[in-house]
């Protein structure tokens, strides 16, 4: 899967879980400031990403993940 296809897939998960318009899902977008997503919603997003990408993300790996870009890097590092 190339990077663009992976981000499209990531984006559709984020749109579904966070209930925000697709154009707000940018690499720079902050979960708390731009997407109004709290920590439980980030956990729920990661669960959806685990299923979509068939990966496993440990809870400790979410420390410091504050933006869409950081979450996307975490996912792609496992592909």
């Amino acid at each position, binding site marked *: 899967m190339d990077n663009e296809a992976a981000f499209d897939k990531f984006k559709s998960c984020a749109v579904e879980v*966070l*209930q925000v318009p697709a154009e707000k899902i940018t690499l720079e977008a902050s979960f708390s400031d731009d997407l109004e997503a709290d920590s*439980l919603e980030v*956990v*729920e997003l990661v*669960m959806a990403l*685990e*299923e979509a990408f068939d990966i*496993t993300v440990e809870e400790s790996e979410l420390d410091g993940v504050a933006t869409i870009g950081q979450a996307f890097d975490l996912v792609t590092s496992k592909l």
Partner: protein
Amino acid sequence: MARPGRRRVAVTGLGVVSCCGIGNDAFFAGLSAPAPVGEHRVYDFDPSPFFDVKQARRADRFQQFSVASAQMALDDAGNLDVDPGRAGVIFGTGVGGLETLQEQITVLVQKGARRVSPFLVPMMMANAGAAAISMRLGWRGPCETVVTACAAGTQAIGNAARLIQLGRCDAVITGGAEAAMVDIGIAAFGNMTALSSSGVSRPFDRRRDGFVIAEGGAALVLEDLERALERGAHIYAEVLGSASTADAHHITAPAPGGTGALACMELALEDAGVTAGDVAHVNAHGTSTPLNDLAEAEAIVKLFEGAGPLVTSVKGVTGHSLGAAGAIEAACCALTIERGMIPPTVGLEELDPDIHINVVTGAPVPLPEGVLLSNSFGFGGHNGCLVIAPIGFSSPGAPA
């Protein structure tokens, strides 16, 4: 009527989400219409006026009913202008977010523990409804949930009234909500043989064969009466008194002869400073189960030393919405007073020959002068009674 040392409690707002109607007018008209055919779900409930899409996804249906009824009651009450630190939320539910729990147990079994939603706990917890109301309004006074099965709505209102009587709160949103009509809930009540096998709710009827499970919610805005008068609020009624007792007998069966129900009704009248002779109407628990209706009718006969005043059970129409039922029925009492008409007991065709009370059937009848008694009894032996009265009521029989 003023009781020394305590403030009076006005009902200044109502909101109802019921299978027989959403909103006060539709609900009250629905109580005198034929019962809904089939399951007693609130099919036309739309959460979108109360929640955006994301909020709705995070709120179990019982929480949606809680917030929707509370918001409707608040809108109905007008401008409360209340100090948020002196405004409370006391809400009831029988089981909380059962649909969410059932869904997530299915996820657990099918996909494993790692897929269980991080929102399961905040969505299923019984206090989610009260918490959501306080967050929505920014009310920071007492915010608590009463979980006493089918008595929850009534006991919540009694507790809420106490907060105003004692001076802790100037306004309280109170009531109850339930949304337990999911497979696990229906199976569980069904296997207890509590549910009607005919699917028809017939309170006090010879052929009654169990309750018809329903869902919904209702909320009341209770307010310090003097404050409500000062701001020119529309006042539906006054909560004169309440009582909460336990049978201490059996986890599901009522105490024989309705002794628990009787004690609770007597205590509520005493709390209200009125006598049995002041009661114009009893809004009965009347679930349509063989045991409840017989025990409740026996208690009423003992309390009034005869058939007593006019009795209605609205569950012939509404079905039994468990922790929401008492709140829906308290809203009915407020509307009964406002409109001066008692709705009939729909579904009752032939009074049980062992039941000797004065049940309203067929069509609404005018409300005589006096106070109303609203009963709720829950699994666990929980009894709750409210005394609700027209604002000008003064007991001729009470000591001066």
